[in-house]
Every structure is written in C-alpha cells, then in structure tokens.
C-alpha cells in the first residue's frame, strides 16, 4: 500500500495538489491511502510500502512550522517521494535549509543522471516560492537556477521541486514500481 500524505492546510487545495496524484495512482491500479500529515500514526506508517508526500499552494507554508510531525522519516527505510513541499520536508528533516526561489509555469529541467526513469531534458510544471538545499541529498536535475530532483545519499528518498502530477505523471508511476 502507498501512503499518500497530504500537506495542504485547506482541504479545498486537495483538489489541486492531492487529487491529481490520487487519479494517477487510481488509473494505474495502485493501492493507496491518503491522509493529512496531522492525522498520521505509527501503525499507518508501518503498514506503508512506499510514501508520497504532496505539495501545496504558493501561499501555504504551514507544513514548515510543523516539521517535527515528520520526524518519523529519519527512522523510515522504505521509498519516499516528496513533491514540492514534500521535497522541502525531506530536505529539512536531513539538516537542509530553505531558500526563497520562485518558478511558476512550464520550465526546462535537465536530468544529469537517471532519476526514476528520467534523463536529459524534460519540460516540467513549476509552482513554488521556496527550494531546499541539503548536503545529505545528491542533485540529479536542475533548472536554470534551482535544484529540481534530489535523492538521499543512503536511503531511497526522492524529492522533486516540480509537479509530476501535472506534467510527467510517469515519474510517479515509476516510483510506485520501485
């Protein structure tokens, strides 16, 4: 079972930032369960085979003030994919720092090495005011001035700054097949 962790502070945003991920999983017959990060419990985390952490809106930085609620990530050993805000969470848990950097709309990203089946140039959809830098992650892809895809140097933890649920849904599917 894939546990899809929702980060939006307002449930109306789930339609934009969570439902497209759910639809992608459903269309590919992937078994999943969605839950907001404030409602997580140990039992549920233990039953997950993989975890996806969603992003949220440009103005919603609530998850940053609740970063302690994600401490369980340090002990987790199975694959995690963090999307936008989800990537910021992964970085912060591993001593990363948040930087201000805005990208909105379609941008070109170059994958230097294979990242969940992605390599070379890809057009991605961006919607962020922040970015994260953590020395515990290797950078796999960047846009002009911004880190776009990272993987932890020891654990199977993946982060993308762009929104693969909008363009590049295959990245999500490839993650579910790890």
């Amino acid at each position: 079972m894939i546990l899809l962790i929702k980060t939006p502070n307002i449930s109306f945003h789930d339609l934009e930032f969570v439902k497209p991920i759910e639809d992608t999983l459903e269309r590919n017959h992937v078994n999943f369960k969605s839950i907001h990060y404030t409602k997580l419990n140990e039992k549920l985390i233990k039953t997950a085979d993989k975890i996806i952490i969603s992003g949220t809106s440009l103005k919603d930085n609530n998850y940053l003030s609740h970063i302690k609620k994600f401490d369980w990530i340090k002990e987790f050993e199975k694959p995690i994919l963090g999307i936008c805000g989800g990537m910021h969470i992964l970085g912060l848990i591993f001593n990363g720092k948040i930087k201000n950097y805005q990208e909105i709309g379609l941008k070109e990203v170059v994958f230097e090495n294979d990242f969940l089946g992605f390599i070379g140039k890809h057009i991605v959809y961006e919607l962020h005011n922040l970015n994260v830098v953590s020395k515990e992650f290797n950078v796999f892809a960047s846009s002009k001035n911004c880190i776009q895809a990272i993987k932890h140097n020891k654990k199977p933890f993946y982060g993308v700054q762009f929104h693969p649920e909008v363009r590049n849904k295959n990245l999500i599917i490839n993650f579910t097949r790890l």
Partner: protein
Amino acid sequence: MKCAVLFSGGKDSTYAAFLTKKYDIEISCLISLISENPDSYMFHTPSISKVNKQAEVMNIPLIIQKTKGVKEEELKDLEFAIKKAKNNYNIEAVVTGAVESAYQASRVQKICDNLDLECFNPLWQKNPEELWNDLLENRFEIIIIAIAAGGMDKELMGKKIDWEMIKKLKEIEKKYRIHLSFEGGEAETFVINCPLFSKKLAVHEKQISGRGDSWKMEIGIK
C-alpha cells in the same frame, strides 16, 4: 475565507464556483473579463455579457472588466479586476476553473502571488469524463454556444448537454480527436441552470453566425 471566482458563465468556472460553496468558502464576488478579441489566450468570449443574468440568479456581485484581449496586456486587465475585488470585497483568494492550461493557470497564480492572495484551481487536471459526470449528476444544465473544431456540427449549437449528447461527443472524440471537455477550444458552453441558481435562465433569442467548422451563438436571456 472570502474569495472571488473568475467567471465566464461556462461549465468550468460555474462548476468551480459550485465546489467553492461546497467547501464552505464564501464567494464575495465574481469577476468576468469581456474580451474584444475572439481568439483570446486567456478568456472565453461568446455571450459573456450574459454573465450578468447568471450573477443575478446566484445573488453574487459581479465585477466586469473590459479588455482588448491583446496577449499579456489582457493579464494587466485581469490583475486590475482582481485588485478591485481585493479593495472592494476584501477577498483573500481567487478561484479559477482552469483544468489543463498551464498558460492560464500559471498567469493567474503569478497575479495572485503579486497581490498576496491564495489561488484555488479545484478542477486542475480533472479527467474530462469525470467532469461531465460530476456536472450532470449535480444537475447542471449546459448549452453549447460556440464550436470551433472538425466534427463539431452546426446542429450542436444551442443544444443542451445531456447523457445522450456526451455519448455523441465521445463518438466525435474518437473520430476527430477533439478534447471531450473542450480544453482545446473545440466548443464554448453556457450554464442555464445549476444548484447555485435561484431559477433557471430561459433562452429566448438565438443568433447564430459563422461558417464551416466555426460557429458562435449570441443568446438573449429572460
């Protein structure tokens, strides 16, 4: 939270308004851009002046903003209208009916970010078949008021979209590869009734113009 809905009177923006209310977010006003350019990148144009009637039966104030519809300049007009909504109605958020267009969605996101407003896109990436199902199950009565694609016959003009019509659209989709919910501009729609309306709008006048695969209809509403 108070919001403004970017409203064209078509199925997507009206359904976005419906969802806004369903999620208990207050709609303080609607914003409609009237474009002089029929090929606007941003705004759906036919019969937009009829949004007045829709706003009336929804009992929601309407801000109408005219625009010449010149690419990028029309965004300044949109920003001006959103600013007006912020000043006059103290809105904290903007809701759009964007489904697939990264062009439209990212422009509105930027404007909202500049004005320190939340931006909601409740139909974002929604599957077209699911969208039609949701609309019909929620008793939306929708008519076609413009068409612009091969396979879209003039006879469709003014027709109400029911299950039978969706079956027909699916056949056209198969044969002519149109987008089932008209994301490629294959058709424009107008909502004559939905749960947000206090009464059904009656179309009493239809003026159809165009040629070939491209037709539009001006309607009079009672």
